[in-house]
């Protein structure tokens, strides 16, 4: 009786082992593979901006064109001062024809090529409408078509710099204003003009960059 039980158990185990071998063998199919690692590294867009070379111009009796004053004062006593940290220029006591001219150097400190955009915002204390009498201009030797509110055409490579010459002028045709008693009013007591530089990746379109910044395209 005991022997029969042993025989049955042995037979059962043998069948189970055979089944395991058969099942196991279905996984042993042929296969091959090859693997490659890919690394994606993103660059960065970053710029620094630096003011410099402030030159003041005023009208002279000898010329209808403003001439360099050779100092940090305008011909009629007004002044101009650059605030590099605040990105602005402050003008005080200026008269028609006074012009402040300075450089703004933008350096691409990121690793990707970038295009630049410069916008300004002015805060003027003076007679009514004085703000409209201020003229602004920007020029770049390497980008003659550049203007405020427009993206630079050429990409600025990583590490490269571009210099712009910016001028702020009180239009020489601005008309002096007097009060009701006939007293001459100071046309502009103080004007502060702040400049903001934006940099965007070079391959993006103007529309994409403006859209991302929420800016209205320049007219």
């Amino acid at each position, binding site marked *: 009786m005991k022997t029969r039980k042993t025989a049955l158990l042995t037979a059962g185990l043998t069948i189970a082992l055979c089944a395991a071998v058969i099942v196991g063998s279905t996984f042993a*199919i*042929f*296969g*091959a*593979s*090859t*693997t*490659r*690692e*890919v*690394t*994606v*590294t*993103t*660059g*960065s*867009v*970053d710029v620094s901006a630096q003011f410099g070379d402030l030159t003041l111009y005023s009208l002279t009796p000898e010329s209808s064109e403003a001439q360099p004053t050779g100092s940090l004062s305008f011909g009629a006593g007004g002044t101009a001062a650059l605030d590099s940290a605040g990105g602005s220029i402050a003008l005080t006591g200026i008269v028609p024809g006074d012009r402040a001219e300075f450089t703004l150097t933008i350096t*691409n400190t*990121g*690793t*990707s*090529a*970038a295009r630049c955009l410069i916008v300004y915002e002015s805060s003027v204390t003076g007679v009514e409408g004085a703000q409209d009498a201020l003229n602004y201009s920007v020029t770049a030797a390497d980008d003659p078509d550049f203007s405020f509110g427009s993206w630079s055409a050429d*990409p600025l*490579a*990583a*590490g*490269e710099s571009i210099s712009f010459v910016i001028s702020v002028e009180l239009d020489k045709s601005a008309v002096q204003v007097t009060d009701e008693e006939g007293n001459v009013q100071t046309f502009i007591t103080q004007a502060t003009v702040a400049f903001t530089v934006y940099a965007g*990746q*070079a*391959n*993006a379109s103007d529309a*994409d960059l403006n*859209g*991302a*910044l*929420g800016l209205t395209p320049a007219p």
Partner: protein
Amino acid sequence: MKKSKAIIISVVLAVMSFIILITASVALFSDSVTVVNYLQAGTLEIGLARTQLTGRTADENGILQVTTDLERVDLTNVQTDDPNDTVFDLGAQSVPGVWQEATLEIENRGTVAFDYAVTFFFAEAPAAGSAAERLAQSLLVTVTDAQGEVLTEEGTTLADVVAQGAIPLGSISSPNAKYTFRLKIELPLAEDVWDTGTGETIMNGALSFNITVTATQKV
């Protein structure tokens, strides 16, 4: 009773041994024929090569360039340190707008028909909330099979294909047969997103992932 049984068994065994001896001595003339059944297993071996790499990537100055590389790169063996010995080579300055499409050729170098598939997986899982994780969620992947059918849905990201696992590409039956399929990765320009390099940025992110092509015998 037991003793007599033992005696009987001993006698029977002695007789049988004697018969065997007699038979052996009689069987002097004999002959035999052996039929050899020859069974040879097939081989499953694949070859993988990149035959074309097209794309728009940043050069060393961060400026995007459109390039086409027609050099054949064998990807069959273990990857070397050669930066070109991979599927994609986006460089180190990727910005939104870069993309590459690799044309890969798979060859049946063995004798066994096989199915093949491509799998993407991270070399190291990106940390939660990291630039690498955001990069994985931004990189778009497109897989196109040998028949030109796009196997990935529009907008499929690297994170998606990693989660998806193996993507079946087709079968190769004949030895030496070759098929080409295409893999594309793209870092798209996101609309109205101004990435300033802070917060949820992908700037200066790095991500490594593996691409494995696996062949499995057809069953």
